[in-house]
């Protein structure tokens, strides 16, 4: 039995919302029972399957964001794993790298991609330069033992497997949600650093 490309895209697009809602349901209680864990993961799935005006919440979310980035999905996966296992696999420097890459990508892509200039960086996502740049960024991070490098490799794997509806490499790397969270996180980091200096 083969899976159609459309089904594959739907399944992939459902992952990030499922991970995010699961994290919300798990809450911040550090002592999670196995029942609470399984229950939260199951409940989030059924909540997202719940039909609103004939369409599941998964479909409504997909209407708005059909291409969650592999970076966002990977980071949500890291958070959920840490929450379920109680083990930290991302250190503060790994998270900082995630927010810096997200901010840099968002600042390059969105203003110009939405028409600020006649240059369209989004069009670079259809040629072969961007994957090479991401391989270089992943190399640089991995040489410093930064684990966010592994998440960047996910975007290359996802693009190779055509898991997204989009054929543009930028969409494997960044989406507006990851971009916005990164911008906020970097602003918080900058403010914290300025306060420490003061």
């Amino acid at each position, binding site marked *: 039995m083969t899976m159609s490309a*459309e089904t594959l895209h*739907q399944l992939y697009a459902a992952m990030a919302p499922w991970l995010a809602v699961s994290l919300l349901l798990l809450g911040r209680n550090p002592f999670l029972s196995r029942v609470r864990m399984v229950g939260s993961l199951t409940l989030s799935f059924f909540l997202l399957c719940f039909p609103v*005006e*004939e*369409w599941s919440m998964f*479909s*409504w979310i*997909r*209407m*708005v*964001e*059909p*291409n969650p980035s592999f970076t966002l999905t990977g980071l949500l996966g890291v958070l959920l794993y840490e929450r379920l296992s109680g083990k930290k696999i991302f250190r503060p420097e790994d998270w900082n790298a995630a927010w810096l890459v997200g901010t840099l990508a968002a600042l390059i*892509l*969105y203003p*110009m*991609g*939405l*028409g*600020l*200039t*006649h*240059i*369209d960086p*989004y*069009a670079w996502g*259809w*040629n*072969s330069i961007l*994957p*090479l740049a*991401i*391989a270089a960024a*992943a*190399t640089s991070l*991995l*040489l410093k*033992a930064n*684990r966010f*490098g*592994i998440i*960047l*490799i996910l975007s*290359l*794997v996802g*693009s*190779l497997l055509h898991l997204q*509806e*989009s*054929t*543009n*490499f*930028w*969409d494997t790397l*960044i989406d*507006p949600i990851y971009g916005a969270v990164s911008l906020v996180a970097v602003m918080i980091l900058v403010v914290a650093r300025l306060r420490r200096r003061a």
Partner: protein
Amino acid sequence: MTSLLRWVLIVMAWLFAALLYRPSQFSRARFGADELAINAGAASPVFKKTAVNAGQALPMVHVASLATLPAGIEAVVWYGGSKECAPDVKIYFSESEHGGGWSSPRVIMSRELAEHDLQRPLQGLGNAVLLSGSDGSLRLLFTTIAMGRWSGSQLNTCLSKDGGITWSPARRLTLSPFFNLSDLVRNRAISLAGGGWCVPIYQEFLGKFPELLWLKESKGQLEYCKSRIAGGCSTFQPSLVPLDDARALAFLRDYTDNRKVFLSRSDDGGCSWSKPVASQLPNPDAGISGLKLSDGKLLLSYNDSSECRDNLALALSRDEGKTWEKLTMLEQESGSSFSYPFLIRTEDGLINLAYTYKGTGIALTEFNEAWVADTLSSLSRSKVMVPQP
């Protein structure tokens, strides 16, 4: 993380990046010979007006697009419903009949069908354009609205291999980085040498600007990318006219206070474009359509007003868009609306112009180059100078 694992991951990263390498299908694109080898048509003047959707009682129809099918049949698509962006808007298809006239309009895409194919809720449908392949296939590019109005739209495509009777499931094209908002299609696509299409598209989200969608079928797969003509929030809805295999002109709808038709030029097959420059032809923030004639002259259909769409005119340029002569007024009625012209040339050399007639009809005017020459010689001309872009 062990040193060995790090190096394995680094090698994997470069391997995956290398596997993602694919040469661009469109980097050295040239406009197709069928766009440039122009049949001037019959020597005697022809001029005829018809209603395409006579008898279709809809409160609103808009944005007609034409394509030539095999055996010289003309096909038209447009959208219609209770009002723009309404959930009941459908895309209609009609084709010319051998004895003259047009077939009864047939729904080829509805919101429900698009929702089924794309597996997500939609608010409505909008602009559609037909692309006629050399193998007889027809590709429909159409706009769906996810939310809001045109700024919440996306482009989709489906294919017919039986002259528009049955269509493949629709497929979404991802063309914008921000929630895939908001690309629309409106004007005639240009075929490329070696196969594929260059389709004028535009964005209407934070900015309004003209772009090009490059499409090609390769080994059964649809490959696509896009490039930009200009950025900002000034001009959009490009109409593309190839001058030769590498040079092209883009006529642009104006969104500024200039209220003029803008022009941009490309000398490298549409890869790069000059900064758009205002012509002195007026534009009331309305659609335009251009076409090249067999003797190199350019024909432009436009609203000859900077304020309203109550007329539809033709203008002619002998010098690749530098200067223009007003040719004739095709429609004029105070308080009415004649808009969104779409020019195309048929296999027998006729020039077909489809447009929205008073908001409730799709009109088609057929004429040939002999009629253009006749009209030109009989009318007093008003020459308008345009700065060189």
